[in-house]
């Protein structure tokens, strides 16, 4: 039973917005919480891992890190295959997945993403097949480069997918999420490289992980400072715990990865541990962002407060006409 007067927010949710002026309808949410299940944050992680791995694979291929390139291609192919399964499975009517392909709409990030994935997935699979079997090397190189070009789009469009909603925690962070997501994708791809190949062959992966972790942490800091009341949804509850864990794993993984692959005596065990931490950190971060959105949709204060504030700002300089529509 949706209890009367239920105040939103999770256990341990600190009241950041003063409740004095906030009114709501029995504490019920204004916007609907997403109907997406855990398949979607899993996809955010796997799609990012795939996209960034393809970029890393293309770079490693061109700069002669062939062992790393092969591992990154295999990782991208595996991750994108799991992604597609997760995406189809999350539909209310999975058999109608192909209906996505009857239109192309720039106003729908999901439509754009579907077409990007439709181009990217065959290339990623072809690049991996060629690398692992040794067949058709020229076609394999072309596929590697093609996947490398589309990879960044695969890794970044998902931020727009979340930003283009009425979910306050996601929409208010629409400027920062692309950087958070590509950063998180880079740490994941770097982590996979550190796990898959010996440290001496994984130097680009370690460097990518460091750059990715830096971008990720910067974006999270900006979210905390810039997006207004919705930032509380990233700080508190399950989302806050997940994001803090993600930060610790990213920093520890990037530092350990750099230590193992770039500085001093290479250590395989340290590199594998660092890579695992980076992968786990990226996954946990995506679940954290997903949870922040869900929590922000559940609590009406995140929807009402910023809109109220906007109206106050709009009215105060020009003294709006009372009784007309709006306030």
């Amino acid at each position, binding site marked *: *039973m*949706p209890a009367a007067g239920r105040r939103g927010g999770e256990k341990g949710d600190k009241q950041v917005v003063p409740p004095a002026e*906030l*009114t*709501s*309808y029995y504490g019920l949410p*204004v*916007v609907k919480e997403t109907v997406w299940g855990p398949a979607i944050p899993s996809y955010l992680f796997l799609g990012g891992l795939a996209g960034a791995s393809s*970029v*890393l694979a*293309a*770079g*490693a291929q061109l*700069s*002669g890190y062939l062992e790393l390139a092969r591992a990154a291609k295999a990782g991208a192919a595996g991750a994108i295959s799991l992604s597609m399964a997760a995406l189809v499975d*999350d539909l*209310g*009517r999975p058999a*109608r*997945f192909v*209906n*996505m392909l*009857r239109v192309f*709409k720039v106003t*729908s990030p999901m439509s754009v993403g*579907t077409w990007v994935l439709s181009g990217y997935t065959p290339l990623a699979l072809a690049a991996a097949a060629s690398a692992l079997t040794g067949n058709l090397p020229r076609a394999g190189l072309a596929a590697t480069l093609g996947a*490398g070009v589309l990879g*960044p*789009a695969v*890794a*970044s469009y998902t931020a*727009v997918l979340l*930003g*283009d*909603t*009425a979910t306050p925690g996601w*929409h208010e962070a629409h*400027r920062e999420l*692309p*950087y958070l997501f*590509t950063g998180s*994708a*880079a740490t994941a791809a*770097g982590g996979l490289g550190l796990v898959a190949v010996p440290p001496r*062959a994984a*130097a*680009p992966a370690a*460097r990518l992980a460091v*750059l*990715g972790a830096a*971008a990720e942490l910067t974006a999270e800091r900006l979210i905390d400072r810039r997006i207004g009341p919705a930032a509380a949804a990233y700080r508190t509850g399950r989302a806050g715990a997940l994001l803090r864990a993600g930060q610790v794993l990213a920093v520890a993984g990037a530092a350990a990865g750099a230590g193992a692959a770039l500085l001093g005596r290479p250590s395989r065990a340290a590199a594998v541990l660092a890579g695992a931490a980076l992968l786990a950190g990226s996954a946990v971060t995506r679940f954290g962002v997903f949870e922040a959105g869900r929590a922000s*949709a559940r609590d*009406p204060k995140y929807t*009402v407060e910023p*809109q109220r504030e906007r*109206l106050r700002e709009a009215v105060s300089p020009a003294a709006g006409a009372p*009784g*007309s*529509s*709006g306030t």
Partner: protein
Amino acid sequence: MGFFTDTSVCIGCKACEVACKEWNAVPEDGLLLTGMSYDNTAGLSASTWRHVAFIEQSAVVPRPAADTWADPADGDGDLRWLMSSDVCKHCTEAACLDVCPTGALMRTEFGTVVVQDDICNGCGYCVSACPFGVIGRRETDGGAHKCTLCYDRLGDGLEPACAKACPTDSIQFGPLDELREVAQQRVAEVQDSGRPEARLYGADPADGIGGAGAFFLLLDRPEVYGLPPDPVVTTRDLPRMWRHAGIAAVGLAAAAVAACRGGRA
């Protein structure tokens, strides 16, 4: 075409809810007692397309001088009971329609927004995009559903079932420009009768959703009724989102290039 819902004359009979369910064959949506005044529907969803909100306010409200229904023995009221029948707003700039990746959501010849059930694949994107929390995904069939403004009845020159059933004309149906004129007169009338707090909600084509196809006369702030005070269609910010995503994508490519420089170890 659209709705003007004048909540100042809503009596909370729920005939609109029932008529909507009956005409559109909308399935049962849970039978519960919520404890929220007389509201046991709780909100709009895939299987609730009209929802009557009941708000009991204990603030002292002076009786309007022209309130002929007031019982003199009551003196100044210490309870105000607000009732309002909520519905899909059929936004002029509709986020659900914008984000739908299959084209299942469409704009009809009446200017309304309708889900084509034979195309919807249940991705659920519209559910998160709606700034009013109207559209939902139905567990039993996996598809998204919401008010159609009785698309089938409009095609036959009939008014929507809820408006037809409303006994006080709280729900009025007609061409939007005519309804807006009626609403402007009505809100002035209600204000003059001693309720200066009366206001229109969703009637302004310059608002964040380009004006609602279903707008309201409210007697308190929108959030009291569970409505967002200043909804803006999320796709207004989409160009900026794509720009940042593009910069981030280029950044990722640049990071990979930088990481691969320095030659073989």
